[in-house]
């Protein structure tokens, strides 16, 4: 074969293909930043220096996009802390203030709407019976006669199914018990959503949309920073708040004080008081997920 003297030889053709392909990749990424993000590794395999650079770039990007100063924290779990949550079923009135406080704090998409907390209305004479519950209750006034309310969010299981099934290790349990998602690594296969027994995982079916004036600029890399289309997200106990010693937003907003939160390893914490003095239950105990989210009857 004598290709060298032909202008359209196979080698030339391949060269052209390479140029066109390379060019189109460069064009589609527009800036090298997008390419960098595309090639970014799994968060847990990054060095401290790489993390710092990524966080800094994200802050710049978000600040430019939303027109206000953004903070993206990558604060790690502190020693001696394991977060636990307790919810008083006898107090909850089903007002859904927690749902919307969560949406605002954690920058959930407004359209399409994503809610990390689902409040289920249950019939009193059926007990905790999901099959007869209703998430779309909409009366003038809550609570309604003959009903009680069961809010469900991520149960931060000690034995989480969702992290086991993830094919790319894009979701994992932090040392303080919070199950997090690396939005830059999630491929969007939704196996974790099939595996979660509590419907706690939510998918960005479209490009998430949060108005700039409503965006919360105090964020955590593994929590409430703005998400992209095609990735899974979930409740993180407000990782950006609780790692700074604050309560989760849903705990703060609850008008009847039904929500309790604290460090399970601290014998003097409120959560430990509840475990000691109230009888608690966990949802779907038979599945052996061992939640860190307890329900109890305070009165």
């Amino acid at each position, binding site marked *: 074969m004598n290709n060298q003297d032909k202008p359209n030889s196979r080698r030339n053709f391949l060269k052209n293909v390479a140029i066109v392909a390379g060019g189109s990749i460069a064009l589609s990424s527009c800036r090298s930043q997008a390419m960098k993000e*595309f090639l970014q590794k*799994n968060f847990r*395999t990054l060095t401290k220096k790489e993390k710092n650079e990524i966080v800094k770039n994200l802050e710049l990007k978000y600040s430019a996009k939303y027109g206000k100063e953004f903070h993206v924290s990558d604060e790690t779990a502190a020693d001696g802390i394991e977060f636990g949550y307790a919810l008083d079923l006898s107090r909850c009135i089903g007002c859904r203030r927690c749902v919307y406080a969560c949406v605002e704090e954690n920058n959930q998409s407004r359209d*399409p709407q994503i809610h990390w907390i*689902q409040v*289920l209305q249950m019939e009193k004479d059926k007990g905790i*019976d*999901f*099959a*007869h*519950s*209703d*998430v779309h209750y909409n009366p003038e006034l809550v609570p309604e006669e003959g009903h009680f309310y069961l809010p*469900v969010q991520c149960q931060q299981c000690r034995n989480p*199914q969702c992290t*086991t*099934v*993830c*094919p*790319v*290790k*894009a979701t994992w349990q932090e040392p303080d018990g919070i199950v997090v998602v690396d939005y830059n*690594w*999630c*491929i*969007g*296969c*939704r*196996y974790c*959503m*099939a*595996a*979660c*027994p*509590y*419907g706690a*995982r*939510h*998918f*960005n*079916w*479209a*490009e998430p949309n949060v108005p700039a004036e409503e965006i919360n600029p105090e964020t955590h890399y593994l929590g409430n920073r703005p998400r992209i*289309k*095609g*990735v*899974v997200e979930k409740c993180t106990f407000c990782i950006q708040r609780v790692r700074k010693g604050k309560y989760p937003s849903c705990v703060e907003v609850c008008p009847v004080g039904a929500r309790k939160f604290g460090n399970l390893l601290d014998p003097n914490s409120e959560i430990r008081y509840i475990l000691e003095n109230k009888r608690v239950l966990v949802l779907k105990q038979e*599945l*052996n997920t061992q939640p860190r989210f307890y329900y109890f009857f305070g009165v």
Partner: protein
Amino acid sequence: MNFIRFVIGSFKIITTGRRSYFAWVIFLIILITWGAFGYAKQLTDGLIVTHMRDSVSWAFHIGNFTFLVGVAAASVMLVIPAYVYHWKPIKEITIFGELLAICAVVMCICFIIVDIGNPLRFWHMLPLVGTLNFPSSLLAWDFFVLISYFLLNLIIVVYLLYCHFYKREYKMSFVMPLVLLSIPLAIGIHTTTAFLFNALPARPFWNSALLAPRFLASAFCSGPAILLILFQILRKITKFEIKDEAIWRIAELMVYAMFIYLFFTVAELFKEFYSGTEHIIYWKYLLFGIGKNHEIVAYSWSSIIMGCIAFVLFLIPATRKNYITLNIGAVLIYGSVYIEKGIALIVPGFTPDTLGQIYVYTPSMVEIRTAVMIFSAGFLLFTFLTKIAIAIVFEDYSIKDLNPKKLKIQMPD
């Protein structure tokens, strides 16, 4: 390069043909284009253009994927009876079975790619650069076995055709171990896919030990159905020789598979309905609907009725040995298993969802168009591959036809 000439030869085969062949190819290309424009909408807007939502987070695409894994597995498993009963054209059956398997696996992977939210991040699953969650995640296992199965079949088929093309004897010591390996791997891909669903205690509809056996049994019904029809066509238009007895034997094996499948399903239904726990609700949604929601009842009963008719047609020797009723039965069982896997397996697993809420799912137009795109592309690939195989195996197309003048220097030893 001998191999490049083999590829060029193959390319020449698929670019020449009768008018009806080109009409078929153009028809498929039109379907692919129509589907691709639907899929393009998903690429720009996201999976919101499907009817999947948080409650029903997997649906039609995963159903198609599961069905095609069955097709891929069963087509190779036909090698077992061919081997046991000493059917004469065992090599041909192997080749066409594996060609079908290759196309089915390609379609499987396409269905996964269109279903995931970030297809460009597929590299996160690759060794070295990615972080594959092996061995924890069943999806990692499935990815691994599907790729191995695909490569194995590709190597076998290409090697056999390559030898044919150069008129060389193939090495039995090379092919036979690979063929024997592909059989357990065929069972492996379908078992792993069943375990993928089976592994989730959150979804009681799938969390039954009978799921994997039922998968295999149903695959043994649908996979051979395609080959049954293909063999009849091949017998008509080529020198392919397969006796009536062999075709009837395939049909007979399919009856056994159908019976086992029926038995497993009855066992499952008995356990669910007699014990009547809260888990019965998924079966109720599938078979009778819950409240006002009857959306998939028509699908499930059409699948059941088609399956039962096919079972009777295959069971009675007179209709099994009549080619008209045999082919009707093959089409019916294929349709039955397709609906069962495509709609009736995945959707009830998610309806009602884990918190008891009912979200009504039926495929959106974009999902249907995307599926049409992938199926047409798969058929196109299968058309090309069978055309190459027919030309090389039955019509003696070889290196001589490619370049008659240089015959002497190009013949490898």
